[in-house]
């Protein structure tokens, strides 16, 4: 690995990346209760309020994994 490549890896690790904006998505999705405070549609008998938030646990993990893969060498 050349010096240049190492330098760019360093800046990327330490500095800002536009990929981080993806994190905003999960904040909006789960911190705005009007989006999900309803019983319908049910899924397997579970009201929307509950399965929506559980689904977002999975989505947020995927988002974080994507950001990790995109910003770490």
């Amino acid at each position, binding site marked *: 690995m050349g010096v240049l490549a190492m330098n760019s890896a360093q800046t990327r690790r330490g500095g800002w990346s536009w990929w981080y904006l993806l994190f905003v998505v999960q904040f909006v999705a789960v911190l705005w209760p009007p989006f999900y405070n309803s019983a319908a549609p049910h899924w397997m*008998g579970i009201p929307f309020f509950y399965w929506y938030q559980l689904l977002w646990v999975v989505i947020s993990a995927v988002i974080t994994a994507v950001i990790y893969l995109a910003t770490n060498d």
Partner: protein
Amino acid sequence: MQDVNWIALSIFVLLFGLITWLGFAAANWRKGDLDLLHEWGLGGRRFGTLITWFLVGGDIYTAYTFIAVPALAFGAGAVAFFAVPYTIVIYPFLYLVFPRLWNVCRKHGYITSGDFVRGRFGNRWLALAMAITGIVATMPYIALQLVGIQVVVGALGISGSGLAADLPLIIAFLVLAAFTYSSGLRAPASIAIVKDILIYVTAFTAIIVIPIELGGFGKIFAAVPAQKLLLAVPGTKTTGAYGSYATLALGSALALFLYPHCLTGILSASSGHAIRRNAAMLPGYSFMLGLLALFGFFAIAAGVANLPEYAGGFKQFGNNFAVPALLLHSFPSWFVGIAFAAIGVGALVPAAIMSIAAANLYTRNIHREFLNKNPSDRQESQMAKWVSLIVKLGALVFILFVPTQYAIQLQLLGGIWIIQTLPSVMLGVYTRWFNDWALLLGWAAGIFAGTAMAVAVNLKPAYPLALGGYTFPGYIAVYTVILNLVVVIVLTPVLNALSARPAPVDQTAAADYYA
């Protein structure tokens, strides 16, 4: 109270014995010199991605969480589910802020938030404020872990009066104290692996078996009273339950990694990469916590509160008895033994980490700073070992002699207090712009206002802030950390202008924050 459940009790005791052995054996795991504080108190910063996952998982998702969140769902309904958005929004913070903190702490040998703040801002009084806040916020947290043990021991049918009633708790405490003393952070790290396997087995079995027994999720949710099923829709001129739900999630998330035990878990990781990977992997626990919250509804649907055999338990432990009663009602004794052991051991892991973290804070930022400035390595780690015992003893005394309600209320206040270290620690990782005394005054303003607001609403988490004819009920921690930050930002230029002294030296350099 029901009779002693011998099968469940035998399995419980067997698993507890296994854990005890493991806790002591851990001293030789990834062997290091336990006379060095960073070896005893941070496991030598050698835990890779997977061990960090177990350790931090055991740290955040504690036994008390597993009892209290479903209990809240059982009693209050939908609002308990705030634990889910809460444990979603913590991970961006973990991903972005804490690898930087890890880097600078490793570079300079810092093991507490107080160490970092001392080095960054050069003010030992500010570091003292961090240390005291951390210790005071942690103590009731340890006490609540012991409540978790108390509830499952009671549910096993062990009861008595006087000393006999408290004996199981005292034995558990002695075990905990002894292996923490001898093995340091290696003990909870190794135990966390066993504990989590037990917890995952319990949770996933229960989430499949109980709904089948009860006739499906449709029937379960039909049994939940309508007003508990969803958040109350806010009226006009107020953000109502929506505001408190969202701010409770956000504020709890901001506060979480400021707790000493969480920081200890993170700093013991072997690299910033391990921390980032964990931000993607720890939601595994969040998902399980969400499922466990549903157990509160299972308990409603199963009608355990009306069964005579559990009346004594509910009388003694209130809604905290909902999960143990549900497990007793739904499973054969041997499985109940495994599930209760998972909860009991689930209390030991965080309690051990918490006492280690509090001991690190006292040793580094109070004792070394103010009492004995040049301890030998051995003296320093010996001091921490003793303090870890004293901290746990304090928690035990608290639980034995003070009503549980006080521990719960103090833990609530603890969350409001610990978030006041955010500007110094989390923002301090990014900027040295703040004046050190301004940070201390902002901290004091936040602590004072937060305590006053909590007292004004009878020690509830949400305060109805009134502004221009509108009411915004919201988590006090969020409101007061904003106040804290405003004070810091306003006072920083003022104090810089007033003071003739040069700014204290920043020990850290910009490059220290990167890998």
